[in-house]
């Protein structure tokens, strides 16, 4: 083990003498090698195991505020329910349960997490919201994270797939401005494509920027207004679930 005693500079040494009166102290190096967020990581790993045992496929949706997470989920939940799938959603917001009420109209099980100022969801917050749900009876769980392209990056929620949404109204260079989030995601969804022409959004440039920070990432293009692109996205989720659970 590295002995760093030698490395203590003079200032630290003076400090040391000052603080240690009669009792004498030894300075030593303690190896830790542990993720800073290991507590959340461990909880998330536990959740992932639980979801897997229950045959539940979990998607975590992240985006900037207003990119269209709730609008997309409203349609996905409704279509999945119509196809006979059992779906649930947990939605995080700083305040209000507006999004949960919107999502509940689909008939899916929905719960709201009001973070009261916290800008992301953590595994323990999600775990607390699952109580009383029969996970075995569910096929899909969608987590709508708090609208924020920074903090949710760090917090694993036990999801199988992380979808980063990006609306055509936000500018083609969003991925270059938030490379860490785009890099942490598995799939990108370009939303509000019905507005692309009006916003003069250059979709080719947007795709290229996504691939610049995350080469090879699967990209879907959807409109919650017209329904365009939704069948492809839903087919992808079903296919991912089948690949994991074989049914």
């Amino acid at each position, binding site marked *: 083990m*590295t002995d*760093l005693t030698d490395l*203590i500079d003079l200032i*630290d040494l003076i*400090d*040391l003498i000052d*603080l*240690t009166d009669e*009792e*004498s*102290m*030894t*300075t*030593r*190096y*303690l*190896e*830790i*090698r*542990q*993720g*800073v*967020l*290991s*507590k*959340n990581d461990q909880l998330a790993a536990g959740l992932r195991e639980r979801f897997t045992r229950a045959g539940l496929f979990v998607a975590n949706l992240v985006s900037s505020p207003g990119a269209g997470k709730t609008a997309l989920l409203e349609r996905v939940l409704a279509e999945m329910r119509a196809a006979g799938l059992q779906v649930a959603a947990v939605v995080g917001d700083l305040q209000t349960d507006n999004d949960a009420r919107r999502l509940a109209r689909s008939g899916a099980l929905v719960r709201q997490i009001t973070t009261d100022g916290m*800008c992301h969801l953590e595994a323990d917050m999600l775990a607390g919201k699952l109580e009383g749900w029969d996970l075995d009876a569910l096929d899909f769980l969608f987590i709508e994270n708090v609208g924020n392209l*920074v*903090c949710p*990056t*760090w917090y694993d929620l036990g999801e199988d797939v992380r979808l980063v949404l990006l609306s055509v109204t936000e500018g083609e260079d969003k991925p*270059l401005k938030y*490379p*860490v*989030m785009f*890099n942490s995601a598995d799939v990108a969804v370009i939303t509000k494509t019905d507005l692309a022409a009006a916003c003069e959004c250059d979709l080719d440039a947007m795709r290229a920027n996504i*691939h*610049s*920070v*995350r*080469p*090879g990432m699967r990209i879907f293009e959807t409109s919650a207004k017209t329904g365009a692109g939704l069948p492809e996205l839903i087919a992808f989720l079903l296919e991912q679930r089948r690949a994991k659970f074989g049914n």
Partner: protein
Amino acid sequence: MHELSIAASLVESAEQAARRAGAQRVTQVFLRLGALSGVAKDALLFSYDIATAGTLLAGSQLVIEDVPVIVHCDQCRCDVALPGIQDFRCPVCGRLCVQIVAGRELEIAGIEIEVADEEANPQPAT
């Protein structure tokens, strides 16, 4: 200031490890910070002083080792470091690289602690 919650977790983990080792005080914390961790170094250093107040880490120094993004290039058949995080093309041949080898680290490598002498050199039980 997203880094304050990161700093709080960092302090919690380090303090727990220090207590387990019977430390009286933590003097340094060694952190490995990947370029893809998304954590801003200055903000973290600033938050660190706030988060350590009143803990075993109070007055300690946060020593950050920057870890660059390293990707594997299929064409060059080797690992290469990237100069930034906005362009995942191999700096040598220009191919887009999918496989990330390093750069996501947000990890406590170790801590320097002060232990009272009898704890550092426990007397053999008689």
